[in-house]
């Protein structure tokens, strides 16, 4: 690990000012960043600790929730209003990492963990465009069972590993940002980027910009929402495929729906094609399956991850069936 300067921020304004030096990074719980620094894949000159910033979870006048970015993952998952109004978010967080890591990791840090694959970590043995821009990608022709089937590019086929972010994408979350020019809001689905030509650029944040909060808009039918994660062992593993879904069924017809997929793309994948397909359709398994196929029509597989296309379709249909039966 390289030497760095450590600074504690007491306010968001303070944090942005302290991070004004080149090659500074914000530090949350450190569960991803410290590991990457130890592997010398991240070499910041300065770390600005933002864990003392707001971690409050507050109900808004419109019925939504505002979650301070320093809230630990456990704090969000245990919050009464998250559990009752946005169960998909509580379940997504609880499906991620281990209890120890959820006690450490912050909301902001979870969002800004690196999109990564094992080839990214293999500094000595593999080429990686994310680690060394322009070098090439050995995952494309390598062991790519865990890699992307949607939105990938010839430069990068890694997937975003967060579970929490899949739920935030489905639930129409907004991120509140502070930069040197002041505050702005950004739709959560527009925060992360697809790899295109520059997989080393993973977000649309400006340099030095800090996530200060995540806002969940009111979504009454999200009481019927959930998260299902399919992985290679029962717990403590990244998703092969995951689904976050909220479904509103009235008299047997899909009135509204929110869907996102995890484990399939460089960013949490909002499934808008499936949503558009489903609105107004009968809430039946055949229609759920057809919606999933519509979403996955453009999916492209690599040598070892072709099974993910069918797995994603089945998981999406199964989750929608479960949510439909719950409100029958």
């Amino acid at each position, binding site marked *: 690990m390289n030497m760095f300067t450590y600074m504690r921020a007491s306010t968001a304004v303070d944090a942005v000012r302290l991070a004004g030096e080149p090659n500074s990074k914000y530090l949350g*719980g450190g569960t991803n960043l410290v590991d990457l620094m130890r592997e010398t894949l991240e070499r910041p000159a300065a770390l600005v*600790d933002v864990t003392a910033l707001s971690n409050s979870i507050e109900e808004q006048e419109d019925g939504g929730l505002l979650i301070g970015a320093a809230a630990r993952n456990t704090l969000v998952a245990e919050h009464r209003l998250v559990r009752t109004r946005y169960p998909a978010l509580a379940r997504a967080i609880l499906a991620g990492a281990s*209890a120890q890591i959820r006690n450490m990791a912050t909301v902001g840090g979870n969002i800004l963990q690196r999109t990564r694959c094992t080839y990214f970590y293999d500094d000595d043995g593999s080429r990686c465009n994310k680690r060394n821009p322009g070098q090439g990608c050995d995952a494309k022709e390598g062991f790519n069972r865990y890699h992307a089937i949607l939105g990938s590019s010839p430069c990068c086929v890694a997937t975003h590993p967060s579970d929490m972010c899949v739920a935030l994408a489905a639930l129409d979350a907004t991120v509140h940002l502070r930069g040197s020019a002041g505050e702005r809001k950004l739709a959560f689905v527009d925060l992360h980027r697809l790899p295109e030509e520059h997989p080393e650029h993973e977000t649309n944040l400006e340099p030095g910009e800090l996530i200060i909060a995540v806002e969940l808009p009111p979504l009454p039918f999200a009481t019927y929402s959930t998260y299902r994660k399919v992985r290679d062992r029962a717990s403590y593993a990244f998703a092969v495929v995951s689904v976050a879904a909220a479904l509103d069924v009235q008299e047997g017809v899909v009135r509204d729906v929110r869907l996102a997929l995890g484990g399939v793309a460089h960013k949490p994948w909002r499934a808008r094609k499936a949503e558009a397909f489903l609105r107004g359709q009968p809430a039946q398994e055949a229609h759920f399956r057809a919606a999933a196929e519509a979403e996955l029509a453009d999916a492209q597989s690599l040598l070892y991850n072709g099974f993910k296309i069918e797995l994603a379709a089945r998981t999406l249909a199964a989750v929608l069936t479960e949510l439909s039966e719950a409100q029958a």
Partner: protein
Amino acid sequence: MRFVINGEDFVADIDPRTSVLDLLREHAGLYGAKKGCNQGACGACTVLVDGERILSCLALAVQYEARSITTIEGLSENGVLHPLQQAFIEHDGFQCGYCTPGQICSAIGMAAEMRRGIPSRVTADLSAEPIALTPDELRERMSGNLCRCGAYNGIVEAISEVFVEAAQ
């Protein structure tokens, strides 16, 4: 920089790169918490900070200044083992013993999480209170601690004896 380790003040002159695990092992002479993977994958370094379980290998010590850290060495009182330590012995909750300090600290943190009513991935009803520590709940909640000897049955029995049967 000042810390409270197992109830006592501990002052160390440390580099900001120092993890809590290295603070314990290299500066405080406490070798209970183990450096298994040093990348957050095995749980052998689990310690309690203000009663919450964390992975000390991924924790930069500078972020934990003035906090109260409890390790396996801090669990016994007046030479009497913590009931969970005793139960691990009685139920063969280990073979080589390498993961044991992390398992025991983790289970104590888990019990506190149960008392707080924190749900897990396998909790069917997210609004349920209290949540029963069923075998499925216990295994899911302890899944961040690996045991390469495969002593899981004994580990589950030991934790169940102390935190499930005692609650009944």
